[in-house]
């Protein structure tokens, strides 16, 4: 056996590390495009097959046409633009609020015996309740403006964040905890400087789920409590059986969701850079 400086036999890293399947080597945009095209093709086939009525599932072509129409109104500042702004505003505010409240509650739940044993069951019990049932309560306290929708969306997005934060606080191992105790860290410092950083991967799992939930929550709020956002547009289109419009509005909502999700994923990559690459105590 020889290990030699053998410049004739240089192996490019890609060949070396692992044989990557073709599909894994596609550049991301190409892969996504292919996948989306595959989905569109299936959709078109189903729509053409005639098994599904067009008022239930419009054809992709018909939907695309409507996407252009909605886009026209959206980008020229039409009523769709107004609705978009309202929903976007609700989504942003709700997400920030859910993050703040959820992180706090998650820390109480994950960080104290009282939180874990008493508060958590109560939070779970509350979360099981169909949140839509609380919409009238929020309406009567907060009125018909965006505040009541924000409250509902926050409420809906809260639970994943709580669970993620609470689980994260348990991620620190015994050695790390001992080290913190040995340097005289207060429980608070251990929380802030050990358990929270250690728990960030879990917390972000919750945040990602919440980033999506908050969009759905804002729409639900608008559906049940009136309002001028995308939810109202969808409801109008749905009641008129204008399914292409429903689908195209939903597509724009998806973009909003993708953006919030992408933002969270980006923040995670920046702040949890060490995850996966290493763990505590390894040289």
């Amino acid at each position: 056996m020889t290990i030699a400086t053998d410049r004739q036999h240089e192996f490019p890293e890609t060949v070396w590390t692992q044989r990557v399947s073709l599909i894994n080597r596609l550049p991301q945009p190409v892969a996504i495009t292919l996948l989306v095209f595959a989905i569109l093709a299936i959709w078109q086939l189903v729509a053409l097959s005639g098994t599904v009525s067009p008022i239930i599932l419009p054809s992709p072509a018909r939907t695309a046409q409507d996407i252009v129409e909605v886009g026209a109104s959206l980008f020229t500042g039409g009523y769709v633009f107004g609705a978009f702004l309202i929903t976007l505003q609700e989504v942003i505010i709700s997400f920030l609020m859910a993050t703040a409240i959820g992180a706090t509650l998650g820390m109480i739940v994950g960080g104290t015996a009282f939180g874990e044993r008493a508060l958590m069951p109560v939070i779970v019990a509350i979360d099981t309740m169909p949140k839509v049932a609380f919409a009238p309560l929020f309406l009567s306290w907060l009125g018909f403006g965006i505040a009541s929708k924000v409250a509902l969306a926050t409420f809906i997005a809260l639970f994943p964040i709580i669970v993620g934060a609470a689980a994260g606080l348990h991620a620190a191992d015994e050695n790390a905890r001992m080290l913190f105790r040995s340097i005289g860290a207060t429980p608070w410092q251990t929380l802030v400087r050990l358990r929270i950083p250690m728990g960030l991967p879990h917390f972000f799992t919750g945040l990602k789920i919440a980033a999506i939930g908050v969009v759905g929550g804002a729409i639900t709020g608008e559906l049940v409590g009136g309002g001028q956002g995308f939810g109202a547009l969808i409801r109008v289109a749905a009641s008129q059986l204008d399914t292409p419009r429903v689908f195209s509005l939903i597509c724009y909502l998806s973009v909003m969701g993708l953006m919030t999700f992408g933002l969270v994923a980006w923040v995670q990559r920046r702040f949890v850079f060490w995850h996966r690459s290493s763990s505590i105590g390894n040289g």
Partner: protein
Amino acid sequence: QELKQVTVVLPHPGAIGHFPMHVARCEGYFEKQGLNVTVQAVDGSGQVIQAIAAGQGDIGNPGPGPLLSARAQGVDVVMFYNHFAKSQFGILVAQDAPFKELTELKGKVIGVGTADGAEVSFARSMLTAAGMTEGTDYTFLPVGDSGPAAVAFQRGDISAYAAATADAAILRTRGMEVRDFTPEAFQGFFGNGYMATRAYIDANPDVIKGFGRALVQGAIFGSDPANREKVLACSAKANPQEAEDRVMLEALFDNIRLRVQPLDPSKGWGYYSPEAWKAWEDSLVASGGLKAPLPDLDKAYTSEFVSYWNEGVNP
């Protein structure tokens, strides 16, 4: 003889609103017509039509607005039995509100269920007829169902609420005193009716005949005050929960019993008048619920079975 299976799709799980059908079920009228009727409930008229279009149900009970929307999109569905022959909708105000005329609502906010519901076009038509225009003379605020509407009344966010008349009964029973403010002239705006696809009607005329006849029998049975208890019992059988609150059930029944009465009894139960459909279409076009008048409005409904249904069952 084998019974023919018929699935009826309703926009709401409540039973009392469709008491003629439930009476027909528990009095065996459908069986006599060779039908076995099962009832399913979905969420709203749009979904009723979708379920029928998908072939999951045979007969549906949507409102006229969504039906016309569906037709505008080339789905050949036809209303054949006018269930809520009188307007289901009205404008409600608080019992002690000073309003007497529609015009007194000038400068007020009027709550509506959704931005576009049937009650919106209805209310808009009424207010337009009273010489008022949306935006300048009054504004609509979408508040959702009757629960949030009650909130809106209490908060003073709205002065009136355009809603189904059943909502008035519900609010009243729950201690929220409201009164109906609807001029008699607008009773012609009929409400939900029974429909099926043209294809189904053509392929199963006997089902339509038998179904309608049993409905008429049920409706007549129900309009007789002597049968009140039986009707309520039939309804309770179909939805025991709804019947638990007796006061509420009776209030709803009293409201609905009036709404299913034919506007013009001489035309028979289930009759559709072309004028009323025209009025609906105009109102929907005006409110944007329909983009344009339909080229074949007369195909949206049919009264062809009315005479068969009413034969020999005259009240």
